[in-house]
């Protein structure tokens, strides 16, 4: 199967969707930042009553928070993107990637029919999925793969 067919056949739920933080609506930005640092994630999904209500990424940090210390004690709801576009577990990887490409998203949360979070399709999930296709060519690649001995080995 080629990559095009694989991306269509692969469901997003089978990708590594674990690269996110989950915070409660109303959490101060300062605490959200601390949690993202501690868990080493670039994105926080914000929930209220167990349902996804917003998304807060390192891009938001760069644009709205880092240079604005006055925001740090506000609730995260003030700077997050509300009601983000989501996909479901059986969405194909190709469809999710298309969404990312066309809408310029960097994360697509994956939710069930009740809006509960199943995971987050991050850039890392995509890169890892693609990189795993090339284990031998890349990891075992000699420094000069095209080099060829001039003569048969002699002894």
């Amino acid at each position, binding site marked *: 199967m080629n990559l095009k067919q694989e991306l269509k056949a692969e469901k997003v739920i089978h990708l590594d969707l674990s690269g996110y933080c989950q915070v409660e609506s109303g959490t101060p930005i300062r605490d959200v930042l601390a949690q*993202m640092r501690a868990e080493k994630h670039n994105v926080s999904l914000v929930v209220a009553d167990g349902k996804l209500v917003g998304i807060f990424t390192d891009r938001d*940090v760069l644009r709205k928070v880092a240079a604005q*210390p006055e925001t740090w004690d506000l609730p995260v709801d003030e700077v997050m993107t509300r009601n983000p576009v989501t996909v479901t577990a059986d969405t194909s990887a190709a469809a999710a*990637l298309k969404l990312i490409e066309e809408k310029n998203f960097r994360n697509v949360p994956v939710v069930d029919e009740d809006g509960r979070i199943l995971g987050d399709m991050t850039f*890392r999930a995509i*890169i890892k999925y693609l990189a*795993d296709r090339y284990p031998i060519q890349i990891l075992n690649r000699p420094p000069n793969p095209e080099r*060829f001995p001039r003569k048969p080995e002699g002894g």
Partner: protein
Amino acid sequence: MTTATIPIKLTRKDFVSDQAVRWCPGCGDYSILAQVQKTLPDIGVPKENIVFISGIGCSSRFPYYMNTYGIHSIHGRAPTLATGLAISNPELSVWVITGDGDGLSIGGNHLIHALRRNVNLNIILFNNRIYGLTKGQYSPTSRAGHKTKSSPMGSIEQPLNPVAVALAAGASFVARSLDAHTTHLGETLAKAAAHKGSSFVEVFQNCVIFNPTEWGELEDRQKRDEHILYLEHGKPMVFGKEQNKGIRLNNGRLEVVELGNGITEDDLLVHDETSREIALLLSNMEYPDYPAVLGVIYNVTRPTYEEGLMAQIEQARQKNGPADLNKLYRSADLWTVSAREEVQSEVSGEVPAGLDEQYVDEIDKETAESSEVGDRLAEESLAALQPNVPISIDATDSLAKAIRKMNAHNIGCLLVTDPEDHLIGILTERDILMRVAGVVEDLTAAKVADYMTPNPIALKPDTPIAQALHEMSIHGFRHLPLVDEENRPEGIVSFRDIVHYLKPELS
């Protein structure tokens, strides 16, 4: 076939070949050759059943000068060839001729394993403690401090003791003799020939050109008896020209004593060639600290390798009947290998004739573009992603300026360069999240240099895309800088460029 009757009485002359002997005049090898030729008529083996196998070295020219079968074989491997021959035809009397270099350096392993297996061989090791054929380099038996062409300040190596090596290897017959002492040498060779199993004879041999003084007074017919202990089985160890000295065992150590003044032959050690303990003690007596020990040091009978092997073959024959090689071969898992279909291979495997002078990568270049995006990711380079022009910043600039610059360009990544435009760091939105936001209040006072990731991984534009995928996956990067040979930024690729590259495949 057996050795019981020989119709014609052979003489030494029957074993002399028509080859001109090419050893230096005065070489000890002449004496050994003559004694071997003199001994062979009496060992009771027909001439056609005698084989001499040698390795490499002066001594290893020996087979040319013997009118018998022989092989001048490869360096150090004479015991190996001899083992195969002795097993394939146990009727043969197989002689191995080797030297201290051939037998103990290059062929050290082959020698010890032939000895421990007790293959029926007669191994004569000519020990002149020098490499003669190659013109005078120190050998594994050269004394410590010996100045040779390859040890002008003296050898710093502890020499091997051939008799001790043979005993340690488990040889069943170990003897020593001297080239200049022809009668003793002849008797010792005869005893070696009579022994069944591996017989090891070290012969002190004089290299008249490169090591003429090695054996000192042993080579002097008038003085040598003063310095030689001739071993005789069951006799006390008396030596000296006047037979006035002896070897005594004193509290586990051997010592030289003068007879008289209350010391009699009854106090001396009695040689027992079947005693491994005495043999090991004797092997440690090294001339000139002690008298040179000549004669049969150790001689025991134990089953030979050939006997054990033949017995097992016979046993298997009785149990399983006659062997059928074809049947054995077909009893294993068999499968049919069909001709392979034409397979596209990255490397053709064959170098066309006439292309020696250039690397074959020239002919190995890709011709057709692959249509499958999965293959293209491995084949195409990062240049195919059309990398963006990077935005740079100085390490001395403030974080406030850096964040303004990123927001103004709507990007999440700045390359940090030095005044010569070399890449020295990278500052991404992840760095801002991890080290700045919510932590650093005064962004104008903070310098980029203190918050960037220094010495980032950077790739050349000709790197395959798939390799960049791995760098991003392993390290969690969203951006990868591209640099030229001088480490100057040429571009930047992001995860988004890769998704964009895949776009035609997504619908």
